[in-house]
């Protein structure tokens, strides 16, 4: 079975995010970028499936600016077999919207014919949590989101999902789209020999036009603001006053 793993280049999770002065978004100029951590988990899962003999080829895809090739190289160094880079914009502040991404991915799935799409449940930049679900709808495939355990047997996949209030286990029919959660696995480090081998692995460069997809944004960003600073606290004189204040704030 072939598995397709879409990965996104996002602002590194260690970087302190700054909003651009005009409020149009987050400042990404000269900021460290890395693979979306959830996507790292999906790459790791694909490699584990390959090591277990359930997958024979891992194809990673990234859609965005040309620099996303670094993200793809990271995935190749971890153990993916080949990569497809879809250069959809040259503006690093232009975030291609989930529907356009899902359409491109659908076209790639039609071409590549994988038996499984494994991807992060969301990207940590915009937290859309939509691409996997949209792709599943466009393909007419089953979907299993927020996976924290994945077991594939024959044409079924058993997936434990993290939902509000606990865990839910579902069984879906393959082919399927699985979006992965934080606790599924711990991604490996790329080894030095594999980093050096990654350079020689195949990376095809495409554009949205190759897939007949229009990536014009449909959503309008009204404004972006930094979270409010924490306000100073107050001292209360007694337990009664504390309870009264908490009631006042609707906390009890």
């Amino acid at each position, binding site marked *: 079975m072939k598995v397709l793993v879409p990965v996104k280049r996002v602002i590194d999770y260690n970087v302190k995010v700054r909003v651009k002065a005009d409020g149009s978004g987050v400042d990404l*100029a*000269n900021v460290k970028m890395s693979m979306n951590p959830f996507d790292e988990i999906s790459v790791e899962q694909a490699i584990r499936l390959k090591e277990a003999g359930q997958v024979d080829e891992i194809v990673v895809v990234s859609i965005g600016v040309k620099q996303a090739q*670094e993200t793809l*190289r*990271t995935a190749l*160094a971890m153990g993916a077999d080949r990569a497809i880079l879809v250069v959809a914009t040259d503006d690093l502040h232009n975030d291609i919207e989930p529907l356009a991404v899902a359409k491109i991915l659908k076209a790639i799935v039609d071409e590549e014919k994988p038996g499984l799409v494994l991807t992060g449940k969301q990207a940590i930049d915009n937290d859309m949590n939509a691409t996997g679900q949209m792709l599943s709808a466009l393909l007419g495939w089953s979907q299993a989101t927020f996976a924290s355990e994945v077991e594939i047997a024959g044409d079924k996949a058993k997936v434990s999902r993290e939902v509000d209030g606990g865990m839910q286990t579902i069984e879906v029919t393959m082919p399927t789209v699985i979006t992965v959660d934080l606790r599924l696995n711990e991604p490996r*480090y*790329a*080894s*030095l*020999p594999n*980093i*050096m081998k*990654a*350079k020689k692995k195949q990376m095809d460069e495409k554009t949205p036009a190759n897939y007949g997809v229009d990536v014009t944004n449909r959503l309008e960003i009204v404004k972006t603001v930094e979270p409010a600073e924490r306000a100073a606290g107050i001292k209360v004189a007694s337990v009664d006053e504390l309870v009264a204040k908490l009631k006042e704030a609707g906390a009890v």
Partner: protein
Amino acid sequence: MTYNAPIEDMIFVLEELCGLKDIAELPGLEEATPDMVAAILEEAGKFASQVLSPLNAVGDIKGLGFDKGEVTTPDGWKSAYDQLVEMGWNSPTADGEHGGMGLPAVVNACIQEMFQGANAAFQLCPMLTQGAIEAVEGFASPALKETYLPKLVSGEWTGTMNLTEPQAGSDLAAIRSKAVPQGDHYLISGQKIYITHGEHDMTENIIHLVLARLPDAPAGVKGISLFVVPKFLITEDGSLGERNDMRCVSIEHKLGIHASPTCTLAFGDNGGAVGYLVGEPNVGLQYMFAMMNNARLNVGLQGVGIAEHATQHATHYAMERKQGGTPEDSGVATIIGHPDVRRMLGLMKSRTEAARILAYRAARSLDYSQRSVDANEKARHQRRVDLLIPVVKGWSTELSVQTASLGIQVHGGMGYVEETGAAQYLRDARITTIYEGTTGIQALDLIGRKILRDRGKAALEIVRDMRATALVLADQQGSSADWPALSGVVSGSAELIENVTNWILEQNGHEPQAVATDVLELFGIALGAWAMGDAALSAGRHIEGRSGTAYHDAKMKTVKFYMANVVPHANALSMIITGAAPSILNLKASDFGTAA
């Protein structure tokens, strides 16, 4: 505090100040293209900050266990070591033929700085294995290579250097350990001390490289041979055989690097440890010196790495801690707003960055000296690396002690409290000016082997390069710096090196030895000015060509700080060097009184 690899600065130094692109054109180094190197440093940085750094404080606090000759490393160390081996970080420069990666020394310099900075006590083990690999790769017979190299290169086995004996420290001529021929091998007996990672529980075997004397060996340094002595003997089929007749008698209690076992090893208590001669008899010390450049470069990088980590720690604290009103134009309410705190952090940052450039330039010359196809270029870089090594080793390590000490000062009372973690850098850094040749030994090497022996050729060559930088600086037109002033500092530094070199060449007595350490520091500071001058040129090109980032702005300001706060000390050192020798030599032992 978690170590963060300064990847942006490393890449800037590699690409813009060391000519990485040209290095990648040397035969055998074609893989090291800038994009490949960036990917390698990214992953090495992750390994340093996520695997090695979290074990640094544990190693310091918990230290080592020792019972009946066995050393126990702290929790998590073996697993980190296994990962290091699995990830291929053990010996990035080793020859591909034996399973290495064949990376340039200059790229390995970045990796070593990161790992040493994240966890110096840990990285000492791979560092010594790298030394053992070089000795075997360079001088051992094909049979020894075949038996020992692959597993040393992969890191499945580790290596050690056995030089010191109780009566033979800086003076190795006094070595007494014996080697008696016995068929195809030798029986080694004697006691070695201060053997780093001489015993540990991270690998199944340890390969000791031991200096000892043959029965008919001449006295002094020309009668010392080098032997491979494995902890477990290797059988015909390559598997582990009998335990060799050598054991760890004790480990030292030390000021720092608590998790690095410093062992006393006893060889031959039961008849003699089996050892195999490396290369020819009686030239063991030459072999050791051949590897010394690399080992000393690595200790210099350890100094840079610890200084970097201490600087990050202190900067982090200074950005959080509020104390007293700060000047309004500082823009912050935390102590980093205080001018004196910025002075301290500026000293820490600027000297660390200058030392990094010098160390990487030494590594770059090492690459050219080993791989260039042009004989002149090869010889010139060999002279350059020989000249720079004692400066990099001596200056970077002395700076790391000063930097770690300033780091404590930034923390105030909290820095003196172990809980903060700021003190560990000072305790760990303190050994770096001692092992692999003390600063005094580096200084004697600089004035003796590196200046007097070639009548100042290598030193005056670097003076020419400094003047070339000064000329380019003087030609700059942009507004990002006061270029004539920067040019003046660099040409002034070139003049100091030239004058001091000539002064050394003119002396007939012990004067140069008396002030050798001052000479070494002057070389460090003045060559730092040259390196920082080149950094300003690159940063200025970015700033004025509108490709400048906050990094380039900070670099330019750091260069200006270095030129104003650090370089003037070289003038004072110059006065000391040419004037102070008589006052040192006049002091007789009796003038210090009698130690009752």
